[in-house]
């Protein structure tokens, strides 16, 4: 199939349509607005529904209603708007409905600013709403991956009847790259769990499934344990012999890839572990790393360490873990190489 040059947000939106998404309810916020704009024209072409909501609260609850009807449904937002989606996400997860969310991350708490960042990591991976649930979280590092992971997110949301999240950022969303789009799919709305009027059968009750499921505590734990066991995704670059392994997702992983190449040219054994699923965190990927690795360096575009916590848990306290933080300032690959080199020289003094 021919490649097409597309902006990240447009490609993601087209991928959603081709994955069978037929409902979008959302609200404008930079830097995700192109998703909304694109779908306002595109969804009606395929018989779908686009609704510009009065707020993110309105949008997420329209998605809840559409998902309850059996439709593949989605909304997208960014930072401040993502905060407003959390209530609805908790309800959708609690009712065990599939839906896909997109957070195109921007910098800062409060109003912040519209440039790229990775500071919503905790809201995404710890779950930002109330109660016991998790989201399947996917982090694209390219426009192509925005397409591929959006399709995957719809399929996995259906498989587990659980919301999935694409955690993108302003860079990936705004850049243009060549992409290959998937074939168009239609998904039947009449799924067995969907509300549609009882039609002679038992009435469908869309609500927290805790009301209906025996031994709910262990049931829901097992559901999320299955995801942890089966849904870890990562890319490993030169980690087998690495003295230092960078851990980074999304846009910062691309700087890290460049740093790995530069380091290797200088004879520095640097590797990269790139989480593609942020939840479940790809702990299994750490098994591919050189057992003699001297340090991990979590690289993320946020002022406070977030990813570093998961790297520490995965590294199991055997290996020092440090952070290379950014956000307002974007790290240069050369600075990452220097930091790696200093970690290696310092490692001689580590007592283990």
């Amino acid at each position: 199939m021919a490649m097409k040059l597309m902006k990240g947000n447009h490609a993601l939106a087209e991928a959603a349509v081709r994955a069978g998404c037929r409902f979008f309810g959302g609200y404008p916020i930079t830097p995700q607005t192109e998703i909304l704009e694109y779908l306002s024209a595109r969804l009606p072409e395929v018989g779908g529904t686009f609704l510009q909501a009065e707020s993110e609260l309105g949008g997420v609850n329209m998605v809840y209603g559409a998902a309850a009807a059996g439709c593949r449904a989605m909304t997208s937002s960014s930072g401040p708007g993502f905060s407003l989606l959390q209530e609805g996400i908790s309800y959708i997860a609690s009712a065990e409905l599939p839906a896909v969310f997109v957070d195109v991350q921007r910098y800062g708490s409060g109003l912040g600013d519209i440039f790229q960042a990775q500071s919503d990591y905790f809201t995404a991976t710890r779950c930002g709403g109330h109660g016991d649930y998790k989201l399947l979280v996917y982090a694209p590092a390219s426009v192509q991956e925005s397409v591929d992971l959006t399709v995957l997110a719809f399929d996995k949301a259906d498989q587990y009847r659980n919301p999935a999240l694409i955690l993108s950022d302003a860079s990936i969303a705004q850049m243009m790259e060549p992409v290959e789009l998937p074939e168009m799919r239609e998904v039947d709305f009449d799924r067995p769990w969907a509300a549609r009027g009882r039609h002679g059968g038992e009435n469908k009750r869309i609500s927290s499934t805790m009301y209906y499921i025996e031994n709910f505590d262990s049931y829901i734990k097992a559901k999320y344990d299955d995801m942890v066991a089966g849904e870890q995704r990562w890319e490993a670059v030169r980690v087998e012999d690495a003295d230092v392994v960078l851990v980074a997702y999304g846009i910062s992983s691309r700087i890290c890839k460049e740093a790995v190449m530069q380091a290797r040219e200088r004879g520095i054994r640097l590797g990269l572990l790139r989480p593609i699923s942020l939840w479940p965190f790809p702990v299994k990927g750490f098994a591919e790393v050189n057992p003699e690795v001297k340090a991990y360096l979590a690289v993320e575009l946020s002022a406070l360490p977030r990813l570093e916590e998961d790297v520490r848990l995965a590294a199991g306290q055997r290996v020092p873990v440090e952070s290379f933080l950014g956000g307002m300032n974007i790290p240069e690959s050369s600075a990452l190489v220097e930091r790696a080199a200093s970690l290696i020289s310092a490692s001689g003094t580590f007592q283990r």
Partner: protein
Amino acid sequence: MAEKRTPALLIEDNRYCPGCGHGIINRVLAEVLEEMGLAEEAVISLAVGCGGLMMYSFGTDWIQAPHGRAAAVATGFKRVRPKNCVIAYQGDGDALAIGFSETMYAAIRNENITAIIVNNGIYGMTGGQMAPTTLPGQKTATSPKGRDADTTGLPLDVIAFMKERKVGYLARGSLHSAREINRVKKYIRAAIENQMNGGGYALVEILSPCPTNWYMTPEAAMKHIENTVETVYPLGEFVKNGEKVDA
């Protein structure tokens, strides 16, 4: 002797307090849906609050909406399945305080759904706190000296907000007598017919007693609605077939 008939849609005894209006409204709604042949097609977007208790006793498909968001949930559902009869069933706190935006925007979009808003002037489920609909001077759990209109505003008349918009049907009924209950049934039927004819947004607001939190007997609560509440909230049909009804 008259045969006692209970609508089959009422699948269990309701869980409301004695003298609560929700039981009457559930009964009337069940009768209308069955008489119109819509029992198998109806999907209810349920509020959080006392109204949400109908999840146990009302036998249609339903979706438990987050507090205040029933109209947005109903919107998403109706857009995907336009043939179903979609009803947002809410109390006044749910629909008019935390959910005022979702409620109003469903009307502003002229969404083809039917909203039933049960106005008892307080938050029932949480124990009788002040609501947007509480009358001036009315004592509640959070207005112990009576609602002060100077600092908390006047009672909210949602139909006054909506009737200047392009909507399909607006009516307000009361439960204070058998005659008024029959009118409520007529309004609910009209509001659902409006939806099934593609007439756009329809709302029936119902003045309903809460003897428990009003600290009244069921009988006194009905008299209070007739003598006091109805002086603040006028009854009748305000918009029909998309046209304003002349007062």
